[in-house]
């Protein structure tokens, strides 16, 4: 196949960028989208041009490193698929593909298609944990957890932190990401003692990072490679409101 790509090129964080058109020949339908970019980069290197920088690592859909907007859809828009798992058989010979970085105030572009998603780490640092120091743990089976709760917690815990939810949201909101972590820990008995302070602090950090608000449109969940449900945002709202109305404390 022959593919034309319009790729966002931006030299550095302070530089201005633009879409640049490249033709990629000899694209096999069995290639992943990133392997197509690899081929492009080899072509560029051969021509003494700097290759396109893009984040990627495990290339099996779990590390959450990769992620670009492909024709205006996060990760290309295929159900439950990260960019690295998107294959060129989803495209046709002669297609023109626009490739842009995630766009959000909280995700500044570092170079070409690479953005800084450090805001996600800061959200986790502000409360996305259970304060169980090593060594303090009781016997694992001493607290049974209903299977339904454990399964639901797992559904939320699957979040790979790729940022597609933010990228796909018309408001660049990080609600689905935050909701996933708050729900994961809030559904487990171990997470109860810090439940209120956790949601309070994580939402405050999220807001301060410059993400937009949620208008419950659902693009985030539709773009999520792990299909994390919108109902977790409902759960986050519930937790935050209840924490707010009780002043953020568990005791009266």
């Amino acid at each position: 196949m022959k593919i034309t790509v319009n790729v966002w090129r931006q030299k550095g964080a302070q530089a201005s960028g633009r879409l640049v058109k490249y033709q990629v020949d000899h694209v096999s339908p069995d290639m992943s989208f990133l392997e197509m970019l690899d081929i492009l980069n080899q072509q560029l290197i051969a021509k003494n041009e700097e290759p396109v920088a893009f984040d990627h690592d495990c290339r099996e859909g779990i590390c959450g490193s990769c992620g670009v907007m492909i024709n205006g859809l996060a990760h290309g828009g295929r159900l439950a698929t990260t960019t690295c798992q998107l294959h060129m058989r989803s495209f046709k010979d002669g297609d023109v593909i626009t490739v842009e970085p995630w766009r959000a105030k909280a995700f500044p572009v570092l170079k070409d298609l690479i953005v800084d998603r450090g805001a996600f780490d800061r959200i986790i640092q502000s409360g996305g944990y259970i304060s169980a120091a090593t060594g303090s743990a009781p016997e694992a089976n001493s607290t049974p957890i209903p299977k339904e709760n454990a399964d639901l917690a797992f559904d939320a815990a699957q979040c790979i932190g790729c940022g597609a939810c933010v990228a796909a949201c018309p408001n660049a909101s990080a609600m689905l990401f935050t909701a996933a972590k708050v729900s994961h820990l809030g559904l487990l008995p171990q997470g109860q003692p810090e439940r209120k302070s956790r949601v309070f602090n994580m939402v405050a950090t999220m807001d301060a990072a410059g993400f937009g608000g949620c208008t419950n449109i659902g693009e985030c969940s539709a773009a999520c490679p792990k299909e994390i449900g919108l109902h977790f945002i409902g759960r986050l709202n519930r937790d935050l409101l209840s924490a707010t109305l009780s002043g953020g404390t568990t005791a009266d």
Partner: protein
Amino acid sequence: MAAALTLNQSTIGKKAIMAVTGIVLYGFVIVHMIGNLKIFEGPKGFNEYSHFLRVVGEPALPAGTILWVIRIVLLVSVVLHVRAAIQLTLLDNAGRPIAYKKVQRKQASFASLTLRWGGMAIFFFVIFHLLHFTVGSALPGYIEGEPYHNVVSAFSNQIWAAPVYLLAVAALGTHLYHGVWSAMQTLGLNTRRTEKLFRGLAVASGIGLFAGFATVPIVVLLGILQ
């Protein structure tokens, strides 16, 4: 209660304010729509209902108390709703300072993407609507205390009135089609189990209110009510 005042500090809290005030206004439009349909009882019934709204609570309470309480609640709701909408819109727009060159949507509904535009349309319509039927300055031949006459005369004589009202209630229906569900989600009432229920409620609200409000101008236009 003091804690509730801190709601305004987070985006989620702001949206909760929006959801609660939205639900107040939603309750109001339902009552309003039911009231509108009393027009089928004829001039006497409709005018008496209108009068009842003005004197309800008397003589136990001073004249107009309940009417003004309702008006104040509605006004405060509108102010808070619009204020939160403006604040959140500004935050949302600031969330993505550089737009994508190419955008596609996977699942967003028309209603959800046009919520703000619909809200603005409704806001301006309400001002007009008050001038039209409450103050009467936008309706030549307006008679205080004769709502039946005013409604019939407006939709029969002002040819643009019915289309304007139909568009406005379409905007309202669309606004609620997303808004009602969104409010439930924002208030954290939505779970996996209630998802379908609230989606259904939102769809029914949007369509039902549109149909209920659209009936009056249509039947007047068709000459069924004179």
